[in-house]
């Protein structure tokens, strides 16, 4: 931690490491950053090896369209619970079986800013990618493994 480094110190710190500016101090590295993020129920982690491999297989992202990136990198329904627990130290607000994977957000500005510069096409691709994982019984116990 660099005490009192402020915004200039934060901006100057290595961009290759996770870092957080909190109360004027700069915290660098996974553990230090999570120490701050977890206070809000959030968290970070390196991409799992399987996603790193998928990312490397994609190669030059500029040469890939949205559908290809979504197909390779999408997190599936059965993974969300574990990620929330591992990264944020909390349970999902919505049970995994009831999660909607195709959500629509509104804001007071026309269109959701998070859509930019992506559009409906990528949402469609994601939706088609993620259904129908996996089967659940009445008490949300997974009864089949995803393929």
């Amino acid at each position, binding site marked *: 931690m660099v005490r009192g480094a402020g915004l200039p110190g934060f*901006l100057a710190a290595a961009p290759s490491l996770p*870092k957080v*500016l*909190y109360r004027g101090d700069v915290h660098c590295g996974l553990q230090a*950053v999570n120490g701050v993020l977890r206070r809000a129920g959030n968290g*970070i982690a390196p*991409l799992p090896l399987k996603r790193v491999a998928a990312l490397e297989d994609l190669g030059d992202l500029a040469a890939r369209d949205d559908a290809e990136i979504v197909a390779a990198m999408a997190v599936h329904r059965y993974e969300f619970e574990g990620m929330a627990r591992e990264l944020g130290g909390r349970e999902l607000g919505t049970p995994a079986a009831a999660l909607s*994977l195709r*959500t629509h*957000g509104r804001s007071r500005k026309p269109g959701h800013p998070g859509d930019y510069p992506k559009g409906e096409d990528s949402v469609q691709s994601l939706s088609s990618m993620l259904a129908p994982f996996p089967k659940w019984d009445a008490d949300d116990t997974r009864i089949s493994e995803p393929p």
Partner: protein
Amino acid sequence: MTAATAGQFDEDSLAQLHVNVHVDGERVEEVEEFMQVLDGVAEWFFEIEGERDVALLSLPARHQIYYHGAAPHGGWFHANSRSVVFSQIVGPAEWEMRYTGAPNPLLDEIRATGALPPLLPA
């Protein structure tokens, strides 16, 4: 976010602190976001409940973040942003992005000083 698109982005639209929730009467459901930084660096403001301080996270490629919609936050995409971020928002099918109206002193400082992260090497 590329050199061509970064300058066009409405920085305020995401940087102002907001929550992502579905409100049904007195019941508030939050959406949850799983974001993977595939290339470049993504920056993100967040507030810790009960504290008035705003923190700023910088997350380089090959990292992921989980955050829940009820926690005030804001993505910071600026003229020097260069990143490929894949974000999935899950939860209630319909939700609303609500600006909290809370001050973001870090964003104010950024605006006052013109400070931006350095451009990443191409």
